[in-house]
């Protein structure tokens, strides 16, 4: 295996809810894994297993309670994502690490094309060029000019998700953190996202993605981390990892067929 680009060790997250008399929640306990450039790690597990918490810790949207996440930057420096200065995290988010939340959080009153173009302008790309590339990416995800010039707040869930996905792929980062990127998409758009993921991977993007869909995991993942009650175990993508939620989903799929 290639040298890891990311090495997570002992990640533990405890949330203390002061407003609920100091109640403690333990979404993640002692999670460790490595990730190589271009590798695809899927995160699976039932709702509430800590999947989103894991991605948020890596993005520093959550503060890890313990552990380290040694990330090798493009410049070859090793940075602990859990303790790096905020300035450095802001720079990494702008240039190297992209987190795509499950639900789009777009600024209000900004057209979809500019929401996507902002990823590029923040990286120093000229506004007109950025708009062209953003527009081409949205087009590829089946969003025409009239949607592109409207505000994402007015969009359907699936359309918002495509704007979110376009932000991730308009200029693929080195490390991509995806929280259920296809949950609201139809089969056609889901396949477009799969193509984009494969292209990004071929370009060296390492991906950590939460998926509920077992078939997608089989098609895309190199490895799978299964979370349950905040504890992780690693399985092969084609292994049956017996998660209640998934079997329910599978049953539903069966019925719908």
């Amino acid at each position, binding site marked *: 295996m290639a040298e890891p680009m990311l090495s997570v060790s002992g990640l533990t997250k405890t949330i203390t809810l*002061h407003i609920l008399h100091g109640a403690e929640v333990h979404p993640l306990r002692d999670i460790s894994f490595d990730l190589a450039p271009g590798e695809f790690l899927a995160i699976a597990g039932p709702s509430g297993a800590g999947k989103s918490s894991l991605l948020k810790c890596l993005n520093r*949207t959550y503060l890890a309670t313990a552990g380290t996440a040694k990330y090798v930057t493009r410049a070859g420096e090793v940075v602990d994502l859990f303790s790096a200065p905020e*300035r450095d995290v*802001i720079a990494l988010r702008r240039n190297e690490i992209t987190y795509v939340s499950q639900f789009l959080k777009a600024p209000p009153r900004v057209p979809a094309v500019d929401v996507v173009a902002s990823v590029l*302008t923040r990286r120093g790309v000229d506004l007109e060029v950025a708009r062209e590339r953003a527009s081409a990416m949205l087009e590829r995800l089946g969003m025409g000019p009239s949607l592109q010039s409207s505000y994402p707040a007015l969009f359907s869930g699936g359309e918002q998700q495509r704007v979110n996905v376009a932000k991730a792929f308009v200029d693929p980062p080195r490390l991509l953190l995806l929280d259920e990127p296809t949950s609201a998409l139809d089969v056609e758009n889901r396949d477009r996202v799969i193509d984009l993921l494969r292209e990004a991977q071929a370009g060296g993007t390492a991906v950590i993605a939460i998926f509920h869909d077992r078939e997608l995991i089989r098609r895309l993942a190199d490895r799978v981390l299964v979370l349950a009650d905040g504890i992780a175990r690693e399985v092969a993508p084609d292994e049956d990892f017996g998660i209640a939620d998934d079997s329910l989903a599978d049953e539903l799929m069966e019925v719908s067929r």
Partner: protein
Amino acid sequence: MVEPLLRVRDLTKIYSGKGHRIVACEDVSFDVYPGEVLGIVGESGSGKSTVLQCLFQDVVPTSGAAYLTSFEGGERNMFEADRRERRELRTHRMSMVYQNPRQGLNLMVTAGGNVAERLLAADWRRVSDIRAKASDYLVRTEVPIERMDDFPAFFSGGMQQRVQIAKALANNPELVLLDELTTGLDVSVQAGVLDLVRDIQSKYGVTAIIVSHDLGVIRLLADRTLVMKDGHVVESGLTDQILEDPQHPYTQLLVNCVTN
């Protein structure tokens, strides 16, 4: 390695008189980096505006230091500046947008004249240059140019704030201080002023400290955020982290008040 543009250390303001002692802010320390927007959030009386007033030297701090990199190479506490230097800091290096436009504008001087005043203070001399620059900034802040020669006293609140923003930006200050700039405006006007500030920030990369009790404003504009309560900074972090994973009991309460 990028150096901070401003370093604030142990800033303290205590109002004391016969038998009473009010701590407005105490031991407040933070850095602001070039191109960054720092948010300060907290309830009324938390001391967040006092911090700005001290930095702009409207208020004399009791103790503490602030180092602006461009002022004496960042080695001299700007609170020790003499009168002439203080004026220079306020006219050339920093500007303030006040919650109350009456504080930031002379309402009986025309909108263009208000912006011109700032340019004059910054040693601009040619009337034609000043007028051109003033109209340029009023256009950028979306003040209709035909209102340039009207008095802000007869402007709406949102328009007054736009003139204040034009004035504050007119001679490219290194640091802009914004105090509750949308408080008191109705929601649609707030949206317009916020969009304007966000737009200016993304186009010109202005470095700013924005004080607000409104988490929505902070979420939209600030890269990093300090949370103040009772004169102290209780928590600081990346804005999304403060909002999604608040650590301090007060911040948890604040965030939950908004989302509920």
